[in-house]
């Protein structure tokens, strides 16, 4: 590829980081090969909790991918010039996140060699079919847009006109990937935690909080590690977006809690009770959820007080709190607790096994590697200009 020359020249620090990621990926791959030969029995999943951290992480990273729209939309539709320098970073982050999503789905399959059956026997009644269509489409859109934009920057020639409509298509498409991902869950009768029309809006606002938070942290890291500066104003504006999205996210969660706890239909209250307090002595998720709540509240204080939010150190801390809080809630709690209690009223605990964690870390490392390489290319092009 014409731009990867920029990724193979770098400092010692750059290469150490790449080697570190490669090692994590190697460990993950080794564990995956073991899972492939032994079966998913290697994981902590069970007959009752039949999806675990793989699918939960998939869900979380669909959100990160969709959140690219939070820089693309203001820049292209509202002419927010400050985002000009980071729009392509958002799109590249989306590419890396979608690749992670596809990998999380892949490692979750019992028969991965048969994955193309989804194309051979397309089944429009299955939301998984639509998720595949929307995720791959989104990957393609963002890959095309970012390559075209970077090429234009490198050669100093304006981007071709046809790319503008492609960018515009990517905006509703971003909303669609996370809506369809919510539809995976919220059309399933009998799974009361998910069977709620507000799931898609919840997914979207939590995405628009977690994704831009990650982008803030990445921009601050880039400033420290390279000569690239996203600009204080761009980072502040991302902070405002995170503030609105996180506030809405907490509001939506409270709406869910009101309906469940005031309405007191046993099926609806039980699953929240399991999340926050545990059922039948199974309290595994309670610490996860309370940590998420605590981090959410702390982040809200830092975000909602303008004087605090404007300080970059505080904003970075808030972004980290938001990201971890949502990662715990959406990347673990929400998916696992959907299976508890089971249709036959059993309370079964789930926790990922060591090999399962290693596979998850391996996929993160692949994501981090992609982001590193993509951002390295972008920054090198800009430094050369």
């Amino acid at each position: 590829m014409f731009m990867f020359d920029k990724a193979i020249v770098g400092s010692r620090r750059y290469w150490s980081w790449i080697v570190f990621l490669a090692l994590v990926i190697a460990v993950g791959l080794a564990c995956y090969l073991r899972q492939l030969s032994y079966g998913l029995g290697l994981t902590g999943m069970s007959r009752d909790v039949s999806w675990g951290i793989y699918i939960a992480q998939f869900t979380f990273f669909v959100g990160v991918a969709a959140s690219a729209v939070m820089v693309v939309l203001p820049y292209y539709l509202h002419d927010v010039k400050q985002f000009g320098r980071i729009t392509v970073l958002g799109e590249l982050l989306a590419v890396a996140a979608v690749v992670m999503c596809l990998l999380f789905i892949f490692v979750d399959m019992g028969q991965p060699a048969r994955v193309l059956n989804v194309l051979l026997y397309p089944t429009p009644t299955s939301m998984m079919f639509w998720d595949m269509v929307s995720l791959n489409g989104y990957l393609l859109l963002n890959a095309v847009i970012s390559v075209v934009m970077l090429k234009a920057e490198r050669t100093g020639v304006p981007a071709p006109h046809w790319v503008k409509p492609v960018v515009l298509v990517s905006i509703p498409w971003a909303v669609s990937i996370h809506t369809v991902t919510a539809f995976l869950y919220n059309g399933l009768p009998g799974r009361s935690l998910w069977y709620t029309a507000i799931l898609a809006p919840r997914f979207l606002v939590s995405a628009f909080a977690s994704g831009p938070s990650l982008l803030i942290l990445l921009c601050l890291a880039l400033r420290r590690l390279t000569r690239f500066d996203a600009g204080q104003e761009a980072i502040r504006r991302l902070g405002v977006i995170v503030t609105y999205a996180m506030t809405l996210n907490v509001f939506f969660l409270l709406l869910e809690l009101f309906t469940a706890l005031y309405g007191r239909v046993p099926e609806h209250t039980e699953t929240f009770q399991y999340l926050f307090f545990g059922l039948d002595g199974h309290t595994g998720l309670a610490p996860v959820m309370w940590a998420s709540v605590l981090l959410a509240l702390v982040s809200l204080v830092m975000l909602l007080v303008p004087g605090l939010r404007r300080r970059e150190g505080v904003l970075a801390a808030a972004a980290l709190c938001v990201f971890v809080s949502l990662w715990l809630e959406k990347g673990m709690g929400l998916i696992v607790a959907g299976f508890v209690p089971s249709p036959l009223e059993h309370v079964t605990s789930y926790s990922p096994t060591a090999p399962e964690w290693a596979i998850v870390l391996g996929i993160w490392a692949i994501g981090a590697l992609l982001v590193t390489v993509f951002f390295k290319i972008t920054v090198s092009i800009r430094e050369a200009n």
Partner: protein
Amino acid sequence: MKITRKDFLKILGGSAVAATAGTLARSAASAEPNAATSKAAEPKAAVKRWGMVIDTSKCRESGCDDCIRACRVAHNIPQIPNPKQEIKWIWKEPFENVFPMQQTDYTRQAFKTPLTVLCNHCADPGCVRVCPTKATWKREDDGIVMMDYHRCIGCRYCMAGCPYGSRSFNFVDPRPYVAEINPEYPTRTKGVVEKCNFCEERLAVGKQPACVEACRDKALVFGDLNDENSGIRQVLRERFAVQRKPELGFGPAVFYLL
């Protein structure tokens, strides 16, 4: 089946319409009070709809597990040591787990022995709706919810989509855990989902399901719900029977006499 690019694009375009239309049609159908039972009340149709009645009082008489053992032998069901990753086609559960909304402090004493549960072979099965490869489907001519172990990709979406907990996943290779392999029925591989098939392989040669045949108390009545003169319809005419979670609109074909 070979799919050309043109076909694929056609499917892609058409399916957007189909998904919406399907949803609308389904909601229209479920607007009729209890679609499943009204279908069963129609005069004898050309197509069958296999169903089962479980007479719980008869079942409790001997409290045996003959049906479970017969099924295990007929279908090479493995005995997985890890209880969290068991394979179950027909098994027993306490009353309050099978009918969680039907118990009160006063009725809790009424059922001390567990009830038999199995796949409900629903009229509108949630598992079939969500499967991304049609590896599980509803057979048109007799209503059995089938499984293709060779097409299943092991995504386990059907397990999330089944509100009855009727499906099991092969977390490990099941073959070492089958005591004696019965050559009449295929063993499965790791990484696929399986469940009760109403003994479609026995029905095909005119036999009753293995569990029904094995039941010493004649507590299981199997037959065609679409045939007014069938034994199962006679039982359903004479006794009041309930289904599990009828409010979900899936229309289970398994009925319980309590």
